[in-house]
């Protein structure tokens, strides 16, 4: 079950960008909490860490790791685990989350979230890594569903079943990225509502919403790219409303990482999320 003693408010948050520092401190509007990428705050000092210290005095912070490679075949990197622990120790964030993905091989880091086959062997490995991370951090983590562009012939179970098992075996919570659900469903020609219906919503400690780009595959079928470079698409808002109806209001993040807009545009997305959350309270 979800550890609610230390958690984010069931309200909108945004992915923090340095260019918004003054605007957020002056008037955060509907934004009640902030999320940062763990790996951007692992230098020795300087402005990023100083800004984060300021922000943390005023807002609950969600630390979102992008580089641990939880799905990697190799053991988790001890140095990186120590860096994550150091960050969580001094910042004491309201939440820590990472991805169901891998990003390293043989010492190389690819700076991308790479896909996993849903097999019993992968499940065992991911559970081992999640349990180890929770042990090192001394806290529950949230694991995020990926956006998929392809499938593995060797997969033995659905993604929802895979994530449900991880949560059950490790006690971790889940981060439900609704845009990823939509992107994956379009790309793999499945039904996003079936995914939501099968998802263990009780374990969801946070929701992500972000923008995607639309391309086409060689047969002309739509191929969506999880780009985080624009407004949340209308069908993703509609899917989010369904999630709220089924699971109730949850801490909801607007992710906008590329072509980052001025603060009012981002705040407007948060306002839209807040309005949808209202009837679900």
């Amino acid at each position, binding site marked *: 079950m979800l550890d609610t003693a230390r958690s984010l408010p069931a309200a909108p948050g945004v992915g923090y960008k340095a260019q918004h520092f003054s605007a957020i401190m002056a008037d955060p509007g509907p934004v009640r909490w902030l999320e940062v990428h763990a790996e951007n705050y692992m230098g020795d000092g300087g402005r990023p860490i100083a800004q984060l210290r300021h922000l943390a005095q005023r807002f609950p912070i969600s630390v979102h790791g992008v580089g641990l490679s939880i799905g990697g075949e190799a053991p988790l990197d001890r140095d990186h685990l120590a860096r994550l622990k150091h960050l969580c120790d001094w910042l004491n964030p309201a939440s820590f989350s990472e991805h169901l993905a891998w990003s390293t091989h043989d010492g190389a880091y690819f700076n991308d979230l790479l*896909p996993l086959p849903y097999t019993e062997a992968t499940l065992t490995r991911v559970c081992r890594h999640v349990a180890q991370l929770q042990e090192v951090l001394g806290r529950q983590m949230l694991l995020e569903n990926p956006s998929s562009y392809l499938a593995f012939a060797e997969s033995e179970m659905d993604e929802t079943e895979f994530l449900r098992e991880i949560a059950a075996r490790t006690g971790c919570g889940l981060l439900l990225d609704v845009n990823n659900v939509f992107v994956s469903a379009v790309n793999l020609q499945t039904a996003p509502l079936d995914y939501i219906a099968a998802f263990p919503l009780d374990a969801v400690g946070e929701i992500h919403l972000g923008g995607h780009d639309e391309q086409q595959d060689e047969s002309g079928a739509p191929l969506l790219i999880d780009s985080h470079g624009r407004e949340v698409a209308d069908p993703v808002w509609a899917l989010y409303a369904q999630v709220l109806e089924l699971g109730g209001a949850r801490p909801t993040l607007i992710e906008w990482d590329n072509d980052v807009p001025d603060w009012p545009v981002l705040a407007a997305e948060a306002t839209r999320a807040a309005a949808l959350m209202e009837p679900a309270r």
Partner: protein
Amino acid sequence: MSQRAFTEALLDPERAVPEGLTGPAGAPIGNRFDIYRNNVAVGLTEALIAAYPVVHRLVGDDFFRAVAGVYFRQQPPRSRLMKDFGDTFPRFLAHFPPAKQLAYLPDVARLERARVHAFHAADTPPLNATGLEGSDPARLLASRVRLTPAATLIASPHPILAIWRANMEGGPKPLPGPCEIVVARRGFDPVMAELPPHGAAFATELKRGRTLAAAHATAPRGFDLAATLAALAAAGAIAALEEPT
């Protein structure tokens, strides 16, 4: 399918897509694997452009993206922190034949690397210039000068500081000639200052823990000690003056 097979194909667009990957409901994979190839290439290239804006301007976007592609395929990131990616780029450029005509390019890259280092360095309050004044000259010479963690010293046969300023701040056209630079930090912003001739080598001796007198002894006749210390202090490169006990 192993992650080794996946990564080999990820970094080499000529290689066949690994077996065992499909599109929807077992359909052929088509061009879907290229999404990952493209994500990796764009992500790493953009990170390199952000770290090396002047090199990017000097060689142009097309050339830079081509160089970045060769670089990250030869030397994929070894660190999960994007601030570290590109730490070997200056040396790579020095041995990259297509960039050979731009002899100053590797040193411009070293300067940009030093700025990234300074930006993320530990917060050590620098000593003000005034902290050095009024000291007894004999005691001063027997002192050790501890540099801040942000400080990097660079000597180049090319006017790389003027090149940087011309490209980033609209500074005047650079005149040929060598330069010596300290890069450090005041507040949270990297600061660059030109050092007098032999200043970089002198400050490197200080960094090794030599006293001012010992470091001065390595400098040639006519070396401007006072101006060098003033420039180091102005850049925020001096953390402390450790007088003899």
